[in-house]
């Protein structure tokens, strides 16, 4: 840009809008137009203008030519790291597949029903929720009848559990980042994890009652009592740890910013 061209933005050469000629000298510059905006637009403009300016100042003050960037470049830094991690896991998979080949059973016989019918292990919890017959209430209002069949009750239990978990992302979970900061909710989480395990054990209650000296009724009680027991223990432990944790936190904070 040569010097005799008209300057439109307060005399500073800019790459954007350099070719736009104002109507006359009285017309507001682009900076003035921006500054006149009101409210949120103005606030946004000021914010970005300030951060842009700070960035520019930092770059100008920096000794580095091309390294004063705010992140690492993808190549080579991140690519090499990702390649290393990928190679590691690929190697582990190839090693296991070659050294410990999986067992391939014989073809299924469509004429005989297996003695034990079970879903894959990661669906045991859902299968266990179908076995809630003992807590499907018999209502005296209905003359000792059940409101819904046991099958419907089990499906409904699945819906309830899935619904509760589906709601979690939409809840405001607060600012706590460690279990000690929220002992109660951490205990609820512990109870949920233990319940996921015990309800999965309930799904294979036939195998468990063969294996362990307990009846299916006792197993059913344990399924619902163990989560509460673990939650109770977790709550007590975390509540006890909280004092020490807050003390450490405050000590560190005051060491950082001593009170006047």
């Amino acid at each position, binding site marked *: 840009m040569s010097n005799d061209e008209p300057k439109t933005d307060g005399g500073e050469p800019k790459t954007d809008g350099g070719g736009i000629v104002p109507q006359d000298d009285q017309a507001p510059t682009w900076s003035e137009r921006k500054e006149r905006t009101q409210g949120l637009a103005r606030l946004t403009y000021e914010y970005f203008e300030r951060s842009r300016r700070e960035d520019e100042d930092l770059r100008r003050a920096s000794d580095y030519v091309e390294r004063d960037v705010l992140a690492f470049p993808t190549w080579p830094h991140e690519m090499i790291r990702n390649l290393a991690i990928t190679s590691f896991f690929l190697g582990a998979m190839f090693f296991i597949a070659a050294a410990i080949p999986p*067992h391939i059973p014989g073809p299924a016989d469509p004429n005989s029903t297996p003695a034990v019918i079970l879903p894959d292990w990661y669906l045991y919890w859902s299968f266990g929720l179908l076995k809630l017959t003992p807590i499907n209430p018999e209502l005296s209002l209905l003359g000792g009848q059940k409101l819904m069949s046991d099958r419907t009750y089990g499906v409904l239990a699945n819906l309830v559990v899935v619904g509760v978990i589906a709601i979690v992302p939409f809840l405001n979970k607060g600012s706590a980042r460690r279990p000690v900061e929220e002992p109660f909710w951490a205990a609820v989480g512990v109870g949920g994890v233990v319940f996921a395990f015990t309800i999965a054990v309930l799904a294979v209650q036939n195998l468990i009652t063969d294996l362990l000296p307990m009846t299916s009724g006792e197993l059913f009680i344990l399924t619902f009592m163990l989560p509460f027991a673990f939650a109770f223990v977790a709550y007590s432990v975390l509540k006890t740890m909280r004092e020490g944790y807050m003390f450490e936190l405050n000590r560190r904070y005051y060491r950082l910013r001593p009170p006047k």
Partner: protein
Amino acid sequence: MADEFAKGLAILTGGGLVWMAISAWLTTESFEGTQLIAPPPEDPGTYAELVLLLRDVTAGFVIIGVITFWFLIPAFYELRDYFDERSAEA
């Protein structure tokens, strides 16, 4: 402390992988039978005996390594810090 945990974990997973592979080869009856901890074959060849020895070595390595890096060394650090603080207070 986190470094010690990572070392213990590396010993556990790496040694455990070797132990698991050898056990799958030599001390597994079948898929339905006892897996990984079945008694070893009666008269394994020389190489299989060497591999079984390596299995025992990895088992000991994993156990001792995990105990060392997850319990003994952190406990030693904690004790050292405790005695340092006590001597600083006195």
